[in-house]
């Protein structure tokens, strides 16, 4: 499909997925072939964008300018529709905000607690644009109608804390809170507990305890959209790891291949020798291996870790030392989960019983396990299996319902038809009174037919 898009314009319509704005002036777009892949399991390629390296000079032209008031409310809404959380989960911002307007939310939590080692993209953003971040938080407060925002940041980030303090001077409703720099306090539910003392209910969301949680970069992107009319088409990515000489934070447009980011940060790595390194997408604790060389930067890609491959010690059997149970920040029993999530036989019911859903994939259990069991990786696989089985169950229920409904409908139709025929028969019988000419004629004909059949049959 040929189209000439502009930076910040929409890509081809793709389900309900947010964050699919063109990062650059594009010449052509094409979609991957299979339209039936379900959203959750979709491959990494949403659209292929070809470009000539030009950035559009006027990204606002079709949406209007927020500053002189030419942007319509509907354009405002459309823009928010396409913002998405930059925290790592990539939730749709519009849905989150909408959920806040309908329930009794009284606090926004702004997450600046970047607690994973090595990760520093949010800190870079604070150093770059503390004032714009505060504007963004104000806009979020205004937009959600909530009165109070709390920023949580780790206590040892002194530069960033003083920058934020400065930007916050004389502003009401936004407070800055320092938390103990201990992994994984930056995880949503733990941060909420530390800052507000509230507990996100099991099987619930932060909004169920009156809180909405935003990453600090998300707040910034929201403010930039509201005030400058620039949509979110890039993000800051931390590039680090022991194969990187000078670890750096770089701003990268969405859709840029990860390999390209790495080779431009580290000159000794090129696309030929990249295979020798281990690339982790996400932080060192929660990250995962790169899907493939065509994986690109998305709103979720906060960090890239490039390591010389370490000699991995082989996993041994669980010795039931219980250390994993002690470190789990959400009080799960990884040892039990490990048993029920063995490759040979994933026991879904038991995993559910031991609250696998609650695992925040922090990786703490991996670190302490003396048998080097890759517990978190195992839990991730098991979670997908659990999700799949629930989805399958739901689909089967729906199919059973629809099958029964159809059977009932067909049966009803059959009955209605039979009833119609019967009614018509009695009606006709009335007109064919016994004794009338027609009646005798018909009776005679029936008799004749029977007689001739009786004669013909013996043979």
């Amino acid at each position, binding site marked *: 499909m040929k189209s000439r898009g502009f930076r910040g314009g929409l890509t081809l319509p793709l389900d309900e997925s947010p964050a699919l704005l063109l990062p650059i002036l594009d010449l052509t777009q094409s979609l991957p072939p299979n339209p039936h892949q379900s959203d959750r399991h979709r491959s990494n390629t949403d659209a292929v964008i070809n470009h000539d390296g030009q950035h559009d000079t006027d990204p606002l032209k079709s949406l209007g300018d927020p500053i002189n008031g030419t942007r319509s409310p509907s354009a405002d809404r459309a823009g928010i529709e396409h913002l998405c959380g930059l925290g790592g989960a990539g939730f749709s911002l519009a849905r989150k905000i909408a959920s806040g307007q309908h329930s009794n939310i009284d606090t926004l939590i702004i997450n600046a607690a970047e607690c994973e080692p090595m990760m520093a993209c949010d800190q870079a953003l604070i150093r770059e644009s503390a004032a714009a971040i505060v504007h963004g938080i104000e806009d979020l407060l205004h937009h959600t109608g909530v009165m109070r925002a709390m920023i949580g940041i780790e206590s040892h980030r002194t530069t960033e804390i003083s920058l934020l303090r400065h930007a916050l001077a004389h502003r009401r409703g936004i407070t800055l809170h320092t938390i103990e720099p201990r992994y994984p306090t930056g995880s949503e539910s733990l941060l909420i507990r530390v800052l507000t003392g509230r507990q996100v209910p099991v099987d619930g969301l932060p909004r169920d305890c009156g809180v909405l949680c935003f990453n600090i970069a998300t707040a910034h992107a929201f403010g930039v959209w509201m005030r400058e009319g620039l949509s979110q088409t890039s993000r800051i990515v931390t590039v680090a790891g022991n194969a990187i000489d000078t670890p750096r934070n770089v701003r990268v447009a969405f859709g840029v291949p990860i390999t390209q980011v790495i080779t431009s940060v580290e000159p000794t790595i090129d696309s030929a020798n990249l295979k020798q390194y281990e690339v982790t997408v996400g932080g060192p604790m929660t990250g995962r291996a790169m*899907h493939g060389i065509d994986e690109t930067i998305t709103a979720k890609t906060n960090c890239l870790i490039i390591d010389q491959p370490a000699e991995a010690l082989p996993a041994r059997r669980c010795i039931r030392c219980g250390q994993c149970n002690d470190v789990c920040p959400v009080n799960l029993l990884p040892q039990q989960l490990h048993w029920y999530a063995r490759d040979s036989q994933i026991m879904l019911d038991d995993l559910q019983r031991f609250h696998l859903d609650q695992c925040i994939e922090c990786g703490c259990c991996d670190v302490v396990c003396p048998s080097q069991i890759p517990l978190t990786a195992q839990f991730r696989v098991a979670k997908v299996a659990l999700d799949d089985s629930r989805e399958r169950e739901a689909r089967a229920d*729906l199919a059973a319902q*629809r*099958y029964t409904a159809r059977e009932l409908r067909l049966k009803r139709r059959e009955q209605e038809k039979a009833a119609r025929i019967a009614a018509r028969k009695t009606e006709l019988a009335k007109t064919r009174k016994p004794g009338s000419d027609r009646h005798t004629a018909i009776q005679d004909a029936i008799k004749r037919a029977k007689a001739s059949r009786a004669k013909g049959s013996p043979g």
Partner: protein
Amino acid sequence: MIAVLVITGLALAIGAMLSVIHHHTGNNTETLSDSINRLLPQTQCAQCGYPGCRPYADAIAADEAPINQCPPGGTHTIEQLAGLLGREVIPLNSTFGETKPDAVAFIDEMTCIGCTLCIHACPVDAILGAGKFMHTVIASECTGCELCLPPCPVDCITLLPVTRSVATS
């Protein structure tokens, strides 16, 4: 004497109440056929030789059919049925078909002539359309049973695989 009568009376009254409550909560009303049906995959493909999962469940419950005739359910379903009915796990009877990966039907809307034949074939009403108009499959409701494929005079229905990728490590 009075005490004995009172206590007996109480016991009877409570017994009656309990039985009423038991009856009304209805947990006991699930028949064997219901339990069997819940273990079947609900693809409604009729490959088992019955016109849907429910009739097959009825047949198993009445001891008229063995438990290894459902290809979409495959080994997993046979294991579960064996567990429920206290029988031995037996291999799938492949004369009824082979287990295939999940799929959903997709109508090539440019080719469809709007004959409505597929609508009548679909056991779960997952096809939408009207006479002489383009038809389409509601993907979220399609079970991938393939029953709509043979009736289509222009062969414009295909089955697409449902991909589920498990991200490892």
